[in-house]
């Protein structure tokens, strides 16, 4: 009996030691080191303008103004909301994910069909066959900040109209915010939509307009 109790005590102590070591010491130690060496990254890579954080360079945002470039559709609307939406219960708190539509799900084809109509209405010069697939499919996280360079390029004619900026300026902004493949091999070429729009806002002197 005492051998049995001794065994249980050992097991209990192992649990407590590992609990403190792996569950407390380790994460707190990593937090300390991270805050010391990589404070910006560890706190969400926030983009600060005029003293206010306007977003994170890693997380996309939902844009409704026609002068801004559009992101991919998101099941969680990029956790972006207006005060009314929050008060009205349309925004229930921060989340992530997708609608998980199977390729055969009719809801998926319905959503894409509707989005194609919407897109061609705003971008009348674009043939629907030329729309790249990423622009009208939702990402897994619902927070993807990127679109493909092609998806950025086909939005430019409409942006020229709505912003009044020249094609060159817009193309330059896109180019500046295009990330190449890692070492030219790994991953994909991407355009960060939030950064593009921040720059458009800067050129149009829109930023600060909503600052409180």
């Amino acid at each position, binding site marked *: 009996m005492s051998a049995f109790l001794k065994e249980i005590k050992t097991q209990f102590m192992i*649990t407590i030691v590992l609990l403190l070591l792996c569950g407390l010491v380790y994460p707190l130690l*990593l937090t300390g080191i991270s805050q010391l060496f990589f404070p910006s990254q560890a706190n969400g890579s926030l983009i600060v303008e005029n003293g206010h954080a306007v977003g994170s360079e890693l997380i996309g945002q939902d844009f409704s103004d026609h002068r801004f470039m559009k992101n991919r559709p998101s099941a969680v609307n990029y956790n972006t909301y207006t005060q009314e939406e929050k008060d009205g219960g349309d925004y229930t*708190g921060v989340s992530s994910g997708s609608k998980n539509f199977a*390729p055969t*799900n009719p809801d998926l084809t319905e959503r894409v069909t509707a989005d*194609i109509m919407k897109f061609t209405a705003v971008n009348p010069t674009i043939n629907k066959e030329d729309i790249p697939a990423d622009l009208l499919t939702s*990402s897994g996280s619902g927070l993807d900040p990127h679109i493909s360079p092609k998806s950025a390029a086909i939005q430019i004619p409409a942006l020229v109209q709505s912003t009044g900026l020249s094609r060159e300026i817009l193309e330059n902004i896109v180019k500046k915010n295009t990330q190449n493949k890692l070492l030219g091999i790994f991953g994909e070429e991407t355009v960060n939509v939030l950064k593009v729009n921040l720059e458009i806002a800067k050129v149009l002197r829109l930023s600060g307009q909503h600052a409180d």
Partner: protein
Amino acid sequence: MLQILIFLAVFVVIIFPMGKYMYHITASQHTFADPIFDRVDNVIYRLCSIDRKGMQWKQYAMAMLTTNAIMVLIGYLILRIQTVPFFNPNSIGGMEPVLSFNTVISFITNTDLQHYSGESGLSYLSQMLVITFMMFTSSATGFSVAAAVIRGFAAKTKTVGNFYADIIRITTRVFLPLSLAIGLLLVSQGVVQNLSPNTTVQTIEGKYQDLSMGPVAALESIKHLGTNGGGFFGANSTAPFENPNVLTNMIEMLSMMILPGSVVVMFGLMVRSRGKSSEKDMERKRLFSREAKPVFAVMFFLLVIGIAVCFWAEQAGNPALQQVGLNQSMGSMEGKEMRFGIAQSALFTTVTTAFTTGSINNMHDTLTPIGGMVALVNMMLNLVFGGKGVGLINMLMYVILTVFICGLMVGRTPEYLAKKIEGREMKLTALAIIIHPLLILSFSALAIALPAGLAGISNPGPHGFTQVLYEFSSASANNGSGFEGLGDNTYFWNITTGLAMFFGRYLSMIIMLAVAGSLMLKRPVSESIGTLKTDTGTFTIVLFMVIIIIAALTFFPALILGPITEHMVLWN
């Protein structure tokens, strides 16, 4: 694809030094880091009054089970009281009992099936003290059992080792230092690591955006190193704060591959020839010890096929979207992140299901039928490297089965590693092999027979069936990924998957410990001209065929009803 080939080459290169290091730890041999770790370990041994005497397999299994049970109890308590204002800046409430049951079982069994969403379901306290803690201990438990089984097969010692010493040594010497280093690397790339409440920013359009925060990197590194797979956020490694760019994507994949890969190398080193000394010298010069070769070859071949098929299927796109006018030359992008694209997504999907991690960098529910089937088949086989240790154990069951079948064909008593395989071992092995399909298929049948099961299905047609099949394959294989559309936070799903995870984990572990324990006690038979060699190309091919035939026989009908029918419908 060049990026995939380079990636696989890196994997093959890194597992050799790591496998050697793991071998030294498991066999209690000298390593360069001993001066530090010996001290740390000794303090822990004394604190917990661990005497490191060897155990018989029954004692080992018992120690493993009761220790895990105590961990489950404490984890459950913390989940229930997580509402306390301690490391809880977002004021998360307590978790209800059935979901808590499912969650602790899920994490202690290394499955990490999540029926909650991290952002709204767990406080930082639970994320650290339950999730991160169990990620360490469940992977250390899996590794310890594998070490014990290999010791039994190698039969160079009289016992299978000491569970307490095993679990401590692997945690302090491998998991903690590696997690810290990889965690820091991830932070440098943008994975968040803080204890602040969620941040609200005002966008340039005047709207608001909430950004989730938390100690993510600490969880993220052990999540992959320990082939756990449960995400800090609901969207797992698709979320940019868990997996911000292609570099972190590859770090996370390599993290989950390195230990299961190394265990195969370690196995080879532990069972290597005990023949003449000249033979031993030759062995030492070889990259791979002989007995590990067929095991590695079959695993690697299955992995490569999986990657190729998944990539091809996803690249082909979705004909249903093509039909409504969306160009599919980019491939099937629904549910995938732009920064990863088709190649890195297909690679991640195959790797995470082969190595039974279960983290995701794209939504598996949105995969094309054949792409999703690759993930499904990986979990059904549960031996394409598998979780660290456990995959190797499963592969050894098939090795024994193959030896047995070959023995029958040539009319000799089957032998493996100079030990006779007899009735007792064969019965246990057959039982272990049958448990996995039995759990998957009978629970799936139950789910589609009951309204409570059917209620969870979110996609119409054959895909709905695949959702059910996937959930139980994932639970039983202790993978943890899901076709996440499934509405699974209900009594029915929490309880059934909880049971599938529990039995899927512990039954096969205990049975294999029993096989190892019984092999260890046998007198070694000397090699003769009639001995079936288990390190040849022929044996590798036979092993491969046995795996394919057994898997095909058991799972083919279910696969026809799910993904294959869906593929036919889609491409009609």
